[in-house]
């Protein structure tokens, strides 16, 4: 699992968190910028998990299979799930939801790295 993918995912997730939490501070509901950010983070998550699975097929298996699958699934679903729930709340708190979820993504990246023993 290339380190550049982990770094890229972490950076775009933190950027989305910053944008969303700033929007929340300015009393703004989730907007197009947050949607684009969510899509970018989702793509990064898919690429990261895809690379991990590819290296698994290539013979480098994760130390804890179940845990890895749990984290991978969570990371794939989290940004989109946060966007859906965030849109249900058309106030500043919708932006809080998207911001909080975006903050969790770097933690998942870190844990996936640990479980995979990169």
């Amino acid at each position, binding site marked *: 699992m290339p380190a550049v993918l982990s770094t890229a995912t972490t950076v775009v997730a933190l950027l989305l968190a910053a944008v969303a939490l700033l929007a929340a501070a300015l009393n703004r509901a989730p907007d197009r910028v947050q949607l684009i950010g969510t899509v970018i983070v989702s793509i990064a998550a898919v690429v990261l998990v895809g690379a991990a699975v590819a290296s698994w097929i290539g013979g480098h298996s994760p130390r804890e299979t179940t845990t890895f699958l749990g984290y991978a699934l969570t990371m794939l679903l989290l940004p989109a799930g946060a966007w859906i729930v965030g849109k249900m*709340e058309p106030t500043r*708190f*919708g932006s809080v*939801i998207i911001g909080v*979820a975006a903050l969790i993504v770097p933690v998942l990246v870190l844990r996936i790295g640990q479980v995979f023993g990169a």
Partner: protein
Amino acid sequence: MPRPVNTGLGRVLVFVYGLFAVAATCRAGVQIIMKFGEAPVSYLLSALAAVLYIVATVGLVRGDAGGRRLAQACFTVELIGVLAVGTLSVLQPQDFPDATVWSGFGEGYGYLPLVLPVLGLIWLRRPQQAATGAVTEDSTVR
């Protein structure tokens, strides 16, 4: 009409509690199935935390008087649990060979297990009635 507890900040709580419910259930499930013998007390506590997160999420989503009571009970037990287990895990770490969600006051989860129940209790303690007389209306509905 009582002010809804499942919108605004309440929706953020529902989302985070829902996430914790999934995470804690999976973690406890994996630990109990794969290596229960290593640290049964820790894993049972993780399972208890998972159940509390699930019930609290359901209570918040329902948002009626019963749901609020349910959520309030969960937050209270959770706060006591995280304080008790947090203190014990610092004083007697040998009793907890493997970490629980509540070890070190939830340090493995960014101290959210400590912050969330406090936030939840404050949220539920917010004045519920927009007008006087709503209390009677509320109790007759239940």
